[in-house]
């Protein structure tokens, strides 16, 4: 007998699962379907199939500008968050130092602040410092909220890279920097890519902080939000959003699958190398 579930229970849980899937996907599917409706109102009645909303946005310079701004902000965010997360993750996993608990708590604290509070905090900071608001200030704010996610993406990967590999490199005379360059970094690359993509996605989708500190140049979510007051713009705005949705789903799924595959490979490779090194060492000493 399976202690976790009875036969009927199993059936009920599968029903619950599919119910949740339908609940989660139905609104998105409906939105996609009606983005092809040849009507100014995104709803019934169905007036025929059209792709004109999708052509519309290519001819709308405001949307393209907003998309470009978002790409800039998201790219900057991803680069800085990933670059900052590498030393932070290495310190947290490989090192012991004073007040480590406090430091790691502070690094992860942006996970638990309501975004509206962080948004106004940064607004006050930049105003007090006299820094003009721009896409760059928005990127600074986005790095704060993306950094914990980037760190938490790298930590488990680092933990699974056996420290023995790095020690072996040092024992063979390589400097710390060379060890990082030739051993740690190459093994860390998949987590680096994940961290980059996660940070990029967080920034690209972020509305609250941007709306306070992006200045006059609206990012795409800010632009989309501002267009909600004008119902006639809705269909073409939704069309762009659908395109972005589809692209982001593909990226997310691809990166998750990639991460899964690379985890398996890492275990196979490093497991062997670390075992060999371990037995060599114990044989010697």
């Amino acid at each position, binding site marked *: 007998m399976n*202690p*976790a579930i009875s036969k009927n*229970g*199993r059936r009920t*849980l599968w029903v*619950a*699962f599919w119910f949740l899937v339908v*609940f*989660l*996907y139905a*609104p*998105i599917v*409906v939105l996609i379907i*009606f983005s092809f409706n040849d009507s100014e109102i995104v*709803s*019934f009645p169905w007036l025929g199939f059209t792709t004109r909303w999708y052509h519309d946005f290519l001819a709308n310079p405001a949307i393209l500008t907003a998309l470009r701004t978002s790409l800039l902000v998201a790219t900057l965010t991803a680069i800085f968050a990933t*670059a*900052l997360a*590498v*030393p932070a993750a290495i*310190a947290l996993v490989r090192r012991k*130092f004073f007040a480590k608990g406090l*430091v790691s708590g*502070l*690094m992860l*604290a*942006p996970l*638990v*602040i*309501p*975004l*509206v*509070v962080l948004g*106004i905090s*940064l607004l*006050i*900071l930049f105003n*007090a410092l006299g820094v003009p608001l721009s896409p760059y200030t928005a990127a600074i704010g986005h790095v704060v909220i993306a*950094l914990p*996610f980037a760190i938490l*993406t790298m930590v488990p990967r680092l933990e699974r890279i056996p420290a023995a590999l790095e020690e072996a490199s040092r024992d063979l005379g390589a*400097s*710390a*920097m060379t060890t*990082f360059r030739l051993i740690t970094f190459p093994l860390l690359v998949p987590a680096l890519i994940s961290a980059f993509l996660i940070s990029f996605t967080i920034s690209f*989708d972020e*509305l*609250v902080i941007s*709306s*306070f500190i992006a200045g006059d140049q609206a990012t795409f979510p800010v632009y*989309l*939000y501002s267009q*909600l007051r004008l119902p006639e713009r809705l269909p073409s705005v*939704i069309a762009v*959003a659908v395109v972005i*949705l589809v692209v*982001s789903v593909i990226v*997310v*799924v691809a990166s*998750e699958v990639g991460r899964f595959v690379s985890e398996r490979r890492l275990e196979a490779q490093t497991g062997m190398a670390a075992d060999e090194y371990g037995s060599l060492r114990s044989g010697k000493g």
Partner: protein
Amino acid sequence: MSIHPPLELAPPKRRRRRGTAKVSLGLISVPMLWIVMFFLIPVVLVGLYSVGVITLISYDQYLSLHAWRYFLHSSTYLGGPLGRGLFWKSMKMSLGVSITCVILAYPVAYMLALVAGRRKYTLLLVIITPFLTSYLLRVLAWRVLLNPQGVIQEMLRGAGVLQPESTISWLYNSTFAVYLVLAYAWVPFVALPIFVSLESLDLQMLEASSDLGASRWTTFRKVTLPMSMPGVIAAFVFVFIPTIGEYVTPQIVGGKGGYLFGNVIQSSFAASFDWQLGSAMSVFLLAAVAILLAIFGRYLNVRTVAE
């Protein structure tokens, strides 16, 4: 700025554990500086701003508690302890949304972790993917569904369930709409920590429990549920905190009736330019979050959320 901090501090001949403190400092200093500069200091500034130590706009009063006095006595924003103000409405909303999310996600997380077998990661990805796509778009989708000319009400009219002229008023621009959409938005996120805590459960414990004569229900009640509580609490907190300051969803599907505490904070900066009042309310909100974390913090393992 050094992106790769100096790892090469120790002289080569010495054993490498020496000089470790300097290396650690080098590694952690830049990310730490970022967080202090753009997270810690700004939050402190908000506190100072709320009492007028710093003033930036013409409405501000230098060194004054008027914002705090006004907020703490207002019936609209606070309304006393456990009052009818927007703060408590937000608290109730977040509480309701978090509990709903946990109830919806638990059975599914249970099934994926303990019943689904080898396909569990794929199926989990199916549940989580919506969370990783545009939040704004998912809220927008509900506006398209719920509004009076929207898909649901038009469909009901077409089916003759709803009279052509009438509308279902509680479905849109209402507190219910905000509650529904927030629960929708956060369910996938909740499934994750619960799944992780259930997956790390030792199946032999369940077998032991059933060998000792416990029914499945008793096993669930006495073994599985208590052991998955850390995941449940993590899920609860990680929905509660982002929704407590939420103002976007109320604006898109909530209308005037669906306004929450986040909306008054946002509008005191974006519309009414009473930054001191907005700061005071932000500090109050942060204090509430801090109390929550102090109570539940020890159950939190943030990793369950990120992996």
